[in-house]
């Protein structure tokens, strides 16, 4: 890995951290968990960026990144006595496939307005491609982040216990 690539990954992580802070404060978390979610978002998004750059498909890369976030969030949850999803959800938000979702809806609108058969076929392809990408990225995000809950349910629900 050359230094240029490394710098790009760092930059990506930094931007993702800023984005995670902004999207986290909408849901009014405590101050500690905002910083944790920024850290997790940076690590997760940089991981995904690296995997996509090295040729992995986007939903699979998202799954790996989300499971990183999920496992680390349980550790942090134990440290600051706070349910894991309070900071794992905001750190996933930069990876939510919003753009693909909008493209799906816009494709639907265009498909409805259009009467040309050849163009309609193209729009149909777009709708399916974008819609399925949205769906699979979303599934990958959630399954990845809830891996610890699915693997060790007892442990994950006890993190806010102090005694």
């Amino acid at each position: 890995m050359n230094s240029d690539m490394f710098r790009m990954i760092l930059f990506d992580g930094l931007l993702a951290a800023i984005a995670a802070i902004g999207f986290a404060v909408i849901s009014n978390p405590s101050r500690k968990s905002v910083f944790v979610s920024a850290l997790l978002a940076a690590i997760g998004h940089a991981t995904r960026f690296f995997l996509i750059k090295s040729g992995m498909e986007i939903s699979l890369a998202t799954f790996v990144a989300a499971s990183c976030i999920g496992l680390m969030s349980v550790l942090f949850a134990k440290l600051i006595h706070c349910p894991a999803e309070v900071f794992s959800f905001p750190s996933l938000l930069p990876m939510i496939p919003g753009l693909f979702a909008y493209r799906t809806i816009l494709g639907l609108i265009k498909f409805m307005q259009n009467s040309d058969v050849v163009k309609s076929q193209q729009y149909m392809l777009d709708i399916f491609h974008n819609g399925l990408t949205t769906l699979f990225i979303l599934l990958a995000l959630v399954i990845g982040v809830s891996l610890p809950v699915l693997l060790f349910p007892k442990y994950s629900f006890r993190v806010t216990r102090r005694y």
Partner: protein
Amino acid sequence: MFIPERNIEKLRQYFQKQLPKLQNISSMESNLEYKIPTIEQISDLLTDIASSLMTSGAHTMRIIQNVSRMAKTFGYDIDLSVFQLSIMMSITNKENPSNRMTIIKKTKPLLLNFTCVSDISALSWDTYDKNLPYDEVRRKFEEIISQKRMSRWLVLILVGFANAAFCGLFKGDLYAISLVFIGTLAGFYVRQEMIIKKINHLVVFTTSAFVASLISGIGYVLPLGNTPEVALAASVLYLIPGVPLINSVLDIIEGHILTGIARLVNASSLIVCIAIGLFASMLILGLTKL
């Protein structure tokens, strides 16, 4: 056993002094018995907690876990169904199973509050471990839900920066980033104002998306920078209902399929509204591609 005369006298005096205190204690005991919470009070508290967890954006499994943990401490068994607009709970006394009731409670519209989720979760473990009495749990719960939210202006600025950073993630240039920053500030301000005025949330999302994308799309009209399309695409991403989407899939995975699908439909309708707002401003700006 021999007790000297004066000692007996002392003892008598001592008991006469203590007698009123003893009477006090017995009256306090009867007070305590009077204060054992009734099943109505317990069920009100538990449904209040469940409904505020639902409002704050907890997933169904956590709501059920927290509430049943507290019910166990108070000596009750509960069965809980959580729906989008209401919560249904059956509560049974463990010692006297004929003492039971079923209660349905409306939930308020979604207003994410993760401080509330984590504090109530901690409170439920505290209740379980320290056997907290009903009154104290009630008091602590009222404290938690009356906490102040973060200042709206700070949130506004941070969301602006977040969406600008998002534009950077999609490789937008500096013009695009600053346009998105301004657009997001305007759009989010409109959203805050409309939420305060209690306007229908679908209308809120459409208008907010329209304002944000109209301002960010100006880069197309007066050519600014090389990536105006990135600015337009990123301008509405701050509105994505991410937490409801994640919650819905989590609910479906954990088997609460009805609630999960309700949340999914809710989130998708919001996304459709955002897309309509985006589409409207694209029509005004005369664009056809995103």
